[in-house]
Each structure stands twice: as C-alpha cells, then as structure tokens.
C-alpha cells in the first residue's frame, strides 16, 4: 500500500460482472466479464469469462505504482480471488469514500449506489432500468450469444466510464493514504466473504423443511410455563396476568399499555432470566425467515458483509442472510467440518479500553488493566472491599457491570433500572457514581461533545467521519469515538490477520470467527490474537487490548451461552417430528 498521495494517471478503473456459481446465493462468484481502463495510457481491457479464467495475473499493473479504483471494491476483489489472481497493492473504493463523505447526511438524492453517487455530484449516468436489465442478464448465466456478450461488456464499460468523472469529482476531498487503507480492507472483506461460515447443512435443511410444525410445537412447549398464547397468537392481556402472578414489574407506554417491543423483552429477560425462553420464542416467531439465509451448496454461509454501511463505519450484513444476524440460538447451526476447528476471538472490554485510552482517565485505565473492569469499578466506588472477587460479590459486580454497559450503550436510568430490576433511583445512583469515579472521562466526553457540535463533525483516528445533524442523539454522539474507533480497530485487525494467511469466516460486530485445521487452530488463534493486539496498539498509540478466544472443534457446535438451551429444545422437537414423519411414511 502506498503511503503517499497519488494522481489520476496512476489509476485503473475497473468493474466485473459476475453471479453466484449455479445462480445460487451463498455460492462463490462466477466471473462473467470485466472492463478495466488504464487512465494514464487510456488503454481499455474488455474481456469475457473464458479469456479471464485463462489469465494468471490481471492484464494491467497491480503493483505499488497503480491504484485500482472501483465502486464497492470488495466485489471486484472477490472476482480477483475467483480468477486466482494476486491481489492489487492499492485499492481505492469510491463507495467507501462516498459513504465517508456523506455519512450522517439525512438525505441522498439517489441513495448510496454508484448511480446515487453520480447523482450526488451531478454527473450523467446510465438509466437505472438498463442497469437492472443487464444485472438480470448477468445473473441468468451463460451461454451468452454475441449480442448479449457485447451488451454485457458495454454495460460493464459504462460503469467503468462512470468511475472516472466520479473519481475526478471526489479526488480533491479524498484523504488519500487513509482512503487506501479503507480500500485495503476490501481485500480482507473479499477473503471473508469467500471463506464464509461452515453450517450444518443437513440440520439447516431439516429446520427449513419442518419449521412450520416446529413453531406449533414450540409454542405449546414454551407457553406451558407462561400461558400467554391463544391459538398460536400472543395475547397481551394474558401476558399481563402472567406478570402479575410472577410479580414482575413491566415497563409501559405513555398510554399505559405494556411495552412489547424487542428491546424491552431483551432488557427484561436480562433482569428476569425466567423470561428468556419466551423472548426467544417471540423472536423466532416474529422474524425468523430461515429460507432467506444464504447457504452455498458447499454448506457455507456467504453473504455481503456490507462494509462501511453503519454510521460508525461498521459492517452491516443482512440480518436474514447472515447467520450471525439471526437469533443467537441459531448459532448452533455453525459447525466446523471434520478435521477443522473454528475460533471466536473477541477483544476483552474493547469499548471500555478505548474510552480509557482516549480519555486518559487514570481510574478507567486502572480498571481496564485490572482485567475485570466491572469489579474494579465497584471497588473504586467503594461498594465492595478491595479484596472482593466476582465470586464473593457477584450481585454488586453485576450492578456495576450493567452500569458500565449502560454508559456504553447510551442507556438512561430508566432502562438501566429495567435491566437491573431495581428502582430507578438505584440506577441513577450507579450512573452518578460512574460520573464521579470516571470524572476525567466525563470531562473529556463533555469537551468532545462541545467540539463536535461546534464543528458539526467528528472523525475517528483513521479518518472515518460523521456529519453531525441537529437531531442526532447526544448519547450516540458521545459514544461515536468508542464505536467508530472500534470499527477501525477491527478493520486493521482483519487486514493484519488476512496478511498472515489465516482464514476469517466472518466479522461478528467487534469479534472475529476464524477457521483452521484442527491441529493448527491453537497456533492460528495465537497469531490472530497477536494481530488484534497490534491493531489496538496502532489505533490507540501503544495502548494494547487483549482478546479472548473460544475454540470449537469438529463435531462441536458454536453455541452462545444464552442460546444453547433453546437450541436443544428445538432440536428435541425436530427429532420428534422427524421420527413421527418416518413412522407415517412407514404406514
């Protein structure tokens, strides 16, 4: 990656047309055609798939002298990978730069697509209808006749030709070295999208086939403890009766009705774990669309990771196509292949550590370095003795933990009280204590808030910026440096880990799932953890964050603690249904 400014003459604009192999979502890409334009020489490369698959390297330079320019470059990098080409040294993704320039703006006239970016800069572009027609043709797959081939190449070239005026318009404002870093991340994204997450495809197929029957059984089984469903429908008056009998105070709307949204159930099931099965049931009845999950014919979940899509610059993959977007209990579908292992690696107390490092709050740094910031906070607040442990004072630790998390999520006293199952006053006391113990952090946060609203802009240490609108929630704004720098840290870590040759299956919020042969997984985990530590040190000027890893070896499944019980329950129902189907078939 070059670490200097570049000019238009160094650029090669590029676009591929491709489709998933066999037209099945979740499969690896099949390249159909490519057009590349060397801006310096004016030379075009127009090539169809049979020609492209013959090449071992691209027909244009990809060394440090060249900048590959694309829009949503991870797609192009996936095609490089599908063709077996070496990755380019420099990538400039105009999508990432357009997102960065417009992040936070309330309205974009044409959205975030290439056409939208062209419209934003008032540049001419092709008609959206023609684009749709050509995408359909590409997705159909070959064989293509002469006319279709030249139409696809012409269409591909129209996108390539659109890139040059767009680049011209954007280049003066592009923060070049950091733009290339964002470009580099597209290579790691392509690798992750290519690797995908291993899924137990047989169980997935069974769940899809029998889901309607499972749902009915689930309601009967789970609802036996609550009595809140009638003819398969959740009844709020019955739920109110249950709450009265169980003596659970439940938040209400301003009109006095029970709040039944997902977040309320999430908070309340943390305060009252007996509600967790009901929450899981509601969750999967309301939004589970199993058939939408993208699973390739090789049993791997692959979908767009949608890098830079969230306001903090995080990946934002589809919640229905991405296995980690589904309810947590469904992570039981994730299972390494025989001989393989996967590892889930998560930074320890990442946001707390970032907040400590950025604000230089001595108490916060000490709490982070203690290894258990929640207990350390309770000690710093004088709520527990200095020799307390998480076993000797679990309740106090939990309260102070929830308080720390509440400040990270921008939660107020009311929500914290709901989560803790305590009066609001107790939540206020805890939040006041956070402000007192971590006064330097709060002074820093106040200052940051004032600076941000003065300039209407805030950015990360690697240049991901946010245009601050007047209606932005002040708590979100205060939290932006922690969240968005965490996203930067993950991007840097992905680049470093990918360079070490470790296969990353997926980024999961601020964690990573990696994969390696069973006998190599321990080494891969150590290497990945070292990369994650290095990423934190690069971002935080030497302040290192450690990470924890959970290794899952074949044939174990990847389970979240809170989801395993529900998974087991669904599997038991599935087995019963399958047995009864077999019996019926036998009759």
């Amino acid at each position, binding site marked *: *990656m070059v670490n200097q400014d570049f000019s238009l003459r160094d650029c090669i604009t590029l676009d591929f047309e491709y489709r998933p192999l066999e037209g099945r979502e979740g499969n690896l890409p099949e390249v159909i055609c490519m057009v590349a334009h060397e801006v310096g020489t004016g030379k075009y490369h127009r090539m169809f798939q049979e020609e492209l698959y013959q090449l071992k390297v691209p027909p244009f330079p990809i060394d440090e002298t060249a900048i590959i320019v694309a829009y949503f470059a991870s797609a192009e990098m996936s095609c490089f990978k599908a063709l077996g080409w070496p990755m380019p040294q420099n990538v400039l993704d105009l999508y990432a730069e357009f997102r960065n320039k417009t992040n936070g703006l309330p309205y974009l006239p044409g959205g975030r697509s290439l056409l939208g970016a062209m419209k934003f800069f008032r540049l001419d572009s092709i008609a959206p209808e023609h684009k749709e027609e050509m995408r359909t043709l590409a997705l159909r797959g070959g064989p293509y006749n002469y006319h279709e081939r030249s139409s696809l190449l012409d269409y591909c070239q129209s996108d390539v030709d659109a890139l040059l005026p767009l680049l011209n318009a954007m280049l003066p404002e592009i923060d070049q070295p950091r733009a290339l870093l964002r470009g580099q991340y597209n290579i790691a994204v392509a690798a992750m999208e290519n690797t995908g997450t291993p899924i137990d495809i047989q169980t997935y197929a069974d769940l899809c086939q029998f889901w309607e029957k499972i749902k009915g059984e689930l309601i009967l089984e789970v609802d036996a403890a609550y009595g809140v469903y009638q003819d398969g429908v959740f009844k709020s008056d019955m739920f109110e009766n249950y709450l009265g009998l169980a003596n659970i105070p439940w938040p209400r709307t301003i009109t006095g009705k029970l709040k039944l949204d997902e977040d309320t159930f999430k908070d309340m099931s943390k305060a009252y774990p007996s509600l967790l099965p009901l929450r899981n049931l509601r969750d999967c009845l309301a939004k589970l669309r199993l058939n939408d999950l993208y699973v390739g014919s090789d049993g791997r979940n692959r979908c767009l990771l949608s890098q830079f899509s969230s306001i903090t610059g995080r990946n934002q993959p589809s919640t229905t196509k991405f296995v980690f977007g589904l309810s947590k209990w469904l992570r039981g579908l994730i299972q390494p292949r025989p001989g393989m292992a996967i590892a889930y690696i998560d930074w320890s107390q990442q946001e707390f550590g970032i907040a400590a490092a950025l604000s230089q709050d001595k108490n916060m740094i000490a709490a982070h370095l203690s290894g258990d910031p929640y207990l350390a906070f309770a000690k710093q607040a*004088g709520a527990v003795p200095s020799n307390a442990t998480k076993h000797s004072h679990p309740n106090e630790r939990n309260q102070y933990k929830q308080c720390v998390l509440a400040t990270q999520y921008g939660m107020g006293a009311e929500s914290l009280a709901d989560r803790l199952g305590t009066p609001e006053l107790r939540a206020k006391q805890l939040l006041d204590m956070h402000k*007192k113990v971590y006064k330097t952090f709060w002074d*820093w946060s106040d*200052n940051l*808030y004032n600076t941000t609203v003065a300039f209407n802009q805030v950015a*990360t240490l*690697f240049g991901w910026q946010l245009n601050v609108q007047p209606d932005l929630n002040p708590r979100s704004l205060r939290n932006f440096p922690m969240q968005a720098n965490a996203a930067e840290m993950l991007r840097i870590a992905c680049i470093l880990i990918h360079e070490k040759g470790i296969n990353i299956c997926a980024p999961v919020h601020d964690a990573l799932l990696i994969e390696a042969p069973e006998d*190599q997984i321990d080494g891969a985990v150590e290497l990945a953890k070292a990369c994650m530590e290095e990423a934190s040190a690069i971002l935080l000027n030497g302040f290192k964050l450690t990470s924890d890893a959970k290794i899952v070896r074949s044939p174990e499944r990847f389970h979240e603690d809170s989801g395993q019980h529900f998974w087991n329950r669904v599997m038991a129902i599935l087995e019963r249904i399958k047995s009864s189907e077999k019996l019926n078939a036998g009759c």
Partner: protein
Amino acid sequence: MSDQTLNQLQETSLVDKPEPTAATKSTSSILSSLRLPDTYNVSGGVALPLKATYGKLNKHRFCRVHPSDDYKFRCLVVDDKDNGETYLAAPNMASQLGSLATPKTIRLAVDNAGTPKLIGEPDLDPSGRRNLWQSSYKDAIKQAENDWVRVQANMAAGQYEITPSMSDLGFPRWPKQSMDELINDAFAGRIIDSPDHPYIRQIQGRI
C-alpha cells in the same frame, strides 16, 4: 433444499494461503503512520462554574461545608417569608430592619453531586436561651467541615437530625469562585443597602 443439492456438496479449500499480493511491502509497517492526531481533546468549550444558591442544606444529599475563613461572611439576613425571598442587608440597615434582620455567617456548602450552596449559620441566641434548632444546625455545620453529612429536620424532636455518610464520598468539589463572587451571584438584586429599598419601605408602611 433438495436431496440432490445436499448430495452435491462441494468443499471449498479452507486451508489455502491467501493469494500472494503483487508487492510484498508490509501493510502493518505503514499503518501506524496513517493514524491521525487525536483531536478529541481540542477544547470545545468549557462549562462555566455553577452559581451557588442560598438556602438550607439539602436534606436528600450528603454535604460538606468549607472550613476556611475565606468562605465565611458575617452579615444580616432578612427572610421575607410572605414572598419567599431572602435578602442580604448592609450593617447600617440594622436599625431600619430591627428584629427582622438576623445576624448570620454565610458559609459555602457543596453536595456530593458538586452543586454549591450558600447557607446561613445562625449566631447563638445572645440571650443565652437554648434553641435546639440553631444549636443542632451549628453542630451539623461543624461536623460537615470534616465529614459528609445529611441534615434533616426532625419536627417531633424539635431539632435537626445529622446523618454522617457510611461511605467515603471522596473529596468535595468546591467551586472555583471567591466568596464575594458567590455571594454576588446568589444575592444579585436582593441586597438591602438603602432605606429606600422596597422591602424597608414596605415594612415601614411607605408607598
């Protein structure tokens, strides 16, 4: 999903090394140089210090009272209970105000949320009569010079009840203003320094 599809499972290569990059220059070696200067600490404005109000110690919060003589101010205080106002009176107004003016020492207090307050410490009754309200309040102030205390009226006992904090609430966050500045802010527009002040005119029946 059909059985046919299930039978067609293809394993992708999971252990392949990533494709070689065209150049070998290490990304990590230049990443650090891309870090921007930390501008989060650029001053975005500093909140002005809170102004003190005059009143009694907060019965809901633990408080401290500044022990220094720099934060003691002897004066006359007039409580206009009808209108809910408290005035500070100049010494030469004593003859005009009579018993309506009470000699007090204004003290600086702060609660554990850092909110400053000016309170009036009463003089002991010069007649020597025992007044439990006054003496218990003075006791509370004395104790609050060193400890966090919460002070609440106990009507049945006819005195203030003093509750020291069971936890160490740390150092009090004293305001940075001088006592003069605090008093000027707290009593702005409520200083009786002339016989023509509306309050004196009112008690003397002058229009």
